[in-house]
């Protein structure tokens, strides 16, 4: 069988995106590269983390499809992949419906409707 190629190109599902976002450092990295393409070193300079830790975060973000990587000479430049917004938008659309589903559950658990029974 042919080995699976590394596939940062395939659109990642919301799960991978959410896992990638579930870390404040990675969210901060995305904010940094939102408007500007930055080299890894410049990203690392924003954090009190080892270069290796930053590099791992970049890998997670790349695999989730959130980051684009471009080589320029010996440098690797990173930027936000705006296409990755699509699964997020879907989740965003679910924010209030999810909240309302919890509201319904919460109210109905706290106020169980007594069985309709004839008058005693």
């Amino acid at each position, binding site marked *: 069988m042919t080995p699976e190629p590394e596939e940062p190109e395939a659109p990642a599902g919301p799960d991978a995106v*959410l896992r990638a*976002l*579930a870390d*404040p450092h990675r*969210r901060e990295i*995305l*904010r940094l590269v*939102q*408007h500007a393409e930055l080299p890894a070193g410049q990203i690392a300079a924003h954090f009190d983390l080892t270069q290796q830790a930053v590099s791992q975060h970049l890998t997670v973000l790349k695999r989730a499809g959130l980051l684009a990587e471009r080589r320029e000479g010996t440098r690797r430049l990173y930027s*936000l992949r*705006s*296409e990755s*917004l*699509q699964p*997020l*938008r879907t*989740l*965003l*659309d*679910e*924010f*209030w*419906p*999810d*909240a*309302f*589903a*919890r*509201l*319904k*559950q*919460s*109210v*109905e658990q*706290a*106020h169980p*409707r007594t069985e309709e029974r004839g008058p005693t």
Partner: protein
Amino acid sequence: MISTSVRIAAPPEVVFPYFTDPQLLVTWIGDRADLDARPGGTFAVDFGDTAARGSYVAVEPPHRVVFTWGIPQDPTLPPGSSTVEVVLVADGGDTIANLTHRDLPPDREPSHREGWERCLALLAAAVCQ
């Protein structure tokens, strides 16, 4: 604009405080709330490390509540910039709860980068539930 509605098996009088009482609000949204449910009063909900901030615009028990909504760390959605309106309609012994979130930044276009920050902030909130 985002809108949603749900049927709840309880009358509006029972449902309404879930939008005004901090202890009831956190049973369905966020994990800490500071609410002062009168026009101009604080509407503050924390989701993990994300904060939603705004103020009440209208408090009309048991049928309507309006509050503003924003995320302080998010330049595209500062506190007070968007508005959430909830209308509770009695239906038999049930409530139909309708919610409309207006004045959100335009971010339908995936290429619209300004929407990114807000997605992030709201998503972080959703993840931290």
